[in-house]
């Protein structure tokens, strides 16, 4: 809901601002906003900014069209480090309990009671994908739980390099539980590099070995519904988690619990309590609040300007747009 509200505000803001901005034939104006805009244009040119219509033509030491991006990245970095240091010093950074997390523990417990295995699908992307990295962290937690309870854990992987990481994660989880003997290398199975061949392989495991719990956490593509529906038909409790928004509807429809979008990153922070991750979550939240504040400011400025005596002249909304718009593709609709 907050992200949708944020987006709606953005859309409203842009639509409210559009009539007042950058229209062909608009008068330059002489008010304070016009003077600020003119100063910004001069500064841009003196820094060697790209001329209009040639985004690759910048000549200065920095591409001024990308300054907003650089400032945002630096600000985010500063916030992240600040909160990481606070977390490392022991300052509490609260993260709300995510229902999907309880569901993971519940699913493992159910599998233990039924004497059937837990199936963990870490997504189908390579290790360079951030969601796969996070999936390995969650896998370690799941491996610890299954080792503690003595439950079989099966991890089919699509990529041979991910298999190596999965082995490390499961081994680490078993060690964390004090049960190194619980690690079974044969249960980390490299099936195929081909997307649908992997999907067919996992579906086959679900049909034959009938896991009681399916945990699908990572980056998924078109195979998500096939996996989730096959898992449902095999009678397993299913918990899915991905930040790939295309596949969320399929998981929501077919799984018992779905960890959605940013909750997926937060789950890792919640489980590991690593200062790095906690700091990142808090920094992201702060930046989003800042973005909402800017959106509200833009909407108010644009609305006030549209209702003013001379809406064709540049207004403070145009100054804000000039300051925030990154180069290449921005500009008037």
């Amino acid at each position: 809901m907050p992200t949708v509200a944020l987006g709606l505000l953005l859309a409203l803001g842009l639509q409210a601002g559009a009539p007042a901005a950058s229209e062909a034939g608009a008068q330059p104006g002489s008010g304070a906003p016009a003077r600020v805009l003119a100063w910004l244009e001069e500064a841009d040119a003196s820094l060697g900014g790209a001329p209009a219509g040639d985004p690759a033509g910048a000549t200065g030491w920095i591409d001024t069209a990308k300054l907003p991006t650089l400032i945002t990245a630096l600000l985010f970095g500063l916030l992240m480090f600040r909160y990481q240091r606070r977390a490392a010093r022991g300052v509490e950074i609260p993260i709300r309990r995510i229902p999907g997390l309880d569901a993971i523990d519940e699913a493992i417990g159910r599998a233990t009671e039924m004497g059937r295995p837990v199936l963990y699908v870490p997504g189908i992307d390579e290790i360079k994908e951030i969601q796969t990295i996070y999936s390995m962290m969650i896998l370690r937690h799941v491996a610890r739980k299954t080792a503690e309870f003595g439950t079989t854990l099966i991890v089919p992987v699509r990529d041979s390099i991910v298999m190596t990481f999965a082995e490390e994660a499961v081994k680490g989880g078993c060690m964390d539980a004090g049960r190194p003997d619980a690690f079974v290398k044969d249960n980390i199975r490299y099936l195929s590099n081909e997307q649908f061949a992997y999907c067919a392989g996992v579906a086959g495991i679900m049909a034959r070995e009938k896991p009681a719990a399916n945990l699908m956490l990572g980056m998924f593509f078109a195979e998500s519904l096939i996996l989730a529906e096959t898992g449902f038909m095999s009678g397993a409790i299913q918990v899915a988690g991905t930040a790939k928004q295309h596949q969320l509807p399929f998981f929501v429809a077919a799984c018992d619990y779905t960890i959605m979008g940013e909750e997926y990153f937060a789950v890792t922070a919640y489980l590991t309590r690593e200062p790095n991750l906690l700091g990142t979550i808090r920094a992201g939240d702060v930046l989003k609040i800042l973005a909402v504040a800017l959106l509200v400011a833009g909407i108010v400025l644009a609305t006030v300007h549209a209702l003013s005596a001379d809406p064709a002249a540049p207004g403070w909304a145009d100054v804000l747009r000039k300051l925030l718009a990154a180069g290449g593709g921005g500009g008037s609709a």
Partner: protein
Amino acid sequence: MASVIANFDRRWIFLAVGLLVVSLYAAGISSELPESEYVRDFHATLEALPPGAIVLLSADFDPASAAELLPMYQGVIHHLFARDLRIVNVATWPAAPPFTQKEFARIAPLYGKTYGVDWVELGFLPGDDVAMGSIGQSLRSAYPRDDRRTSWADLPLLADVGDNMRGISLLITASAGYPGILEWIAQVGGRYDVTLLAGTTAVQTPDLFAFYPLQLKGFLGAATGATQYLQLAAPLAARLPTGEGALDEVRDENQRRMLVQSWAHILILALIVVGNVIYFRTRVPTGAARR
């Protein structure tokens, strides 16, 4: 009745879907669609290019999504050749080149086009978004030779293409996922002076609305968008003899598929309604309702 849903054999649903699709497709009825604004923009952007302009056409799909994307790819090739636009064809998915080679081999002779002068096939480049960054920065560095092992110097079309996408007026991608249009926008659209158009699968189409019409001047969403575009581009077919490879056949085939899709959607809606009716009739009242 609560057990109806739990115990219902899903294979009846599979059978219903299968029979519906097969029977309607066999019936061969087709229907026209009204064109959406973003499809019209896609068409208009192509129409606005001057003859001789160079278009970078990227095939970012595989057999799984070819049913949705190949018709729009065929339509675009027809459109570009009919308007005497030149094409540089690349691919960031390894399974795409066999499709594109076949289409160019079939369509180019219909317009009397010459390889190396009117179009060039550079083939698959590994590296996902890194490959796209390379293509944007320097096409020549990314592809020292084309897919037929011909060097750059022996391809007259490429003499007009420079670094930083200079010489390329338009980038069109048929995109099935990653890497695809979102990566093209990030790696190329935001950095260089080139207009972007896209055709995508249904699941990716909602993403594109965030970039339209600023970063993306128009797009074709799924088979629906492809059919709408083929309807707009159909007048081009008047220049061609009817037969294998003609655009009107592709359009007619897609319109036929759209009718099948229509009724499949109606079936799914009906299943949702039936499922909800069963759910509400068997739901145990809670709280105040009980009192």
